[in-house]
């Protein structure tokens, strides 16, 4: 690094007046802290010799870098403190949200009586479709969409499902199996006429090796 040709170690950063831009620029070879900060944000590219060759700027840049390091350390320690907290705040969030927001449309179930209105909510059906996928190993179901007029009995409906499959699995076989299970679930819990279940493999999940695995709790 050519920058280290001007080792500013030990020199103190110029303690300029916060309001005096002229003094700031005079102390920083015509630059400002804001410019230097942006320069660092850009990874010091493209190289600007008027900054790189100025010992004053170098001192300021080092200070900015040090500030950034301390910031990262602060964030790390804040995060580890927050992560170590007990779980009650998670519970309190989950206890305070309502499923009502996601009930979706009402899917009719037949009954001979004209005064009967029997339905299963779209939210309940999506839930059981996810469950169906979750009971299979090595596949994670994402979004499930019921396409078509589910509120009118007899209208053909298409189900669109996004999945992540673990690397190494036989994708067509997994998809077929999931399709069969979902079809059976739809038969059991709805009276929908299912035209197709389209499964899109969005992602392959690559098992992180032990070293890269996320830290255990």
């Amino acid at each position, binding site marked *: 690094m050519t920058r280290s040709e001007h080792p500013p170690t030990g020199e103190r950063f110029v303690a300029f007046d916060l309001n005096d831009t002229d003094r700031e620029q005079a102390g920083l070879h015509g630059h400002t802290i804001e410019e230097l900060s942006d320069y660092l944000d850009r990874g010091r590219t493209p190289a600007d010799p008027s900054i790189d060759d100025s010992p004053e700027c170098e001192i300021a840049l080092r200070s900015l870098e040090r500030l950034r390091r301390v910031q990262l350390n602060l964030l790390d320690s804040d995060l580890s403190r927050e992560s170590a907290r007990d779980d009650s705040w998670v519970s309190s969030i989950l206890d305070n949200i309502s499923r009502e927001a996601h009930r979706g449309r009402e899917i009719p179930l037949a009954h001979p009586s004209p*005064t009967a209105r029997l339905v299963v909510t779209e939210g309940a059906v999506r839930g059981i479709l996810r469950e169906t996928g979750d009971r299979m190993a090595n596949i994670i179901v994402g979004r499930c969409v019921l396409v078509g007029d589910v509120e009118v009995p007899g209208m053909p409906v298409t189900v669109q499902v996004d999945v992540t499959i673990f690397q190494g699995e036989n994708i067509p076989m997994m998809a077929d199996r999931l399709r069969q299970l979902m079809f059976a679930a739809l038969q059991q819990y709805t009276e929908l006429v299912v035209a197709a279940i389209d499964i899109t493999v969005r992602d392959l999940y690559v098992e992180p090796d032990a070293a890269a695995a996320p830290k255990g709790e």
Partner: protein
Amino acid sequence: MTVLTPATEQLDELVRGVQGVDALYPAGSIVENALITAAREMAHRPPAASMVATEQRADGLRVTAKIGIGAAESSGDVCRRVHDAIDAQLRQSGNSPIAQIAVIVARIG
């Protein structure tokens, strides 16, 4: 508004007792439920209102039950059982004409 009829409180019991019913949820309108929830949060106690909603309108009585069912069940079968149980109960207790009995499966498994 929810109008309490003599049969209302027994309806909660009745629906809970139907085979395949795992859970019973408050069936009022969304706004009404929000009010109940807000009241419950303020008072820190469960609402006194019954889960099965009943409403007397000009054309007759409207009853709504919102349920959760077990994963081994069929939604249609459980719904029909709940409907038929409510229907029989209302007829037996000599209520006014029935305009609608709604059964909503809001959760499976």
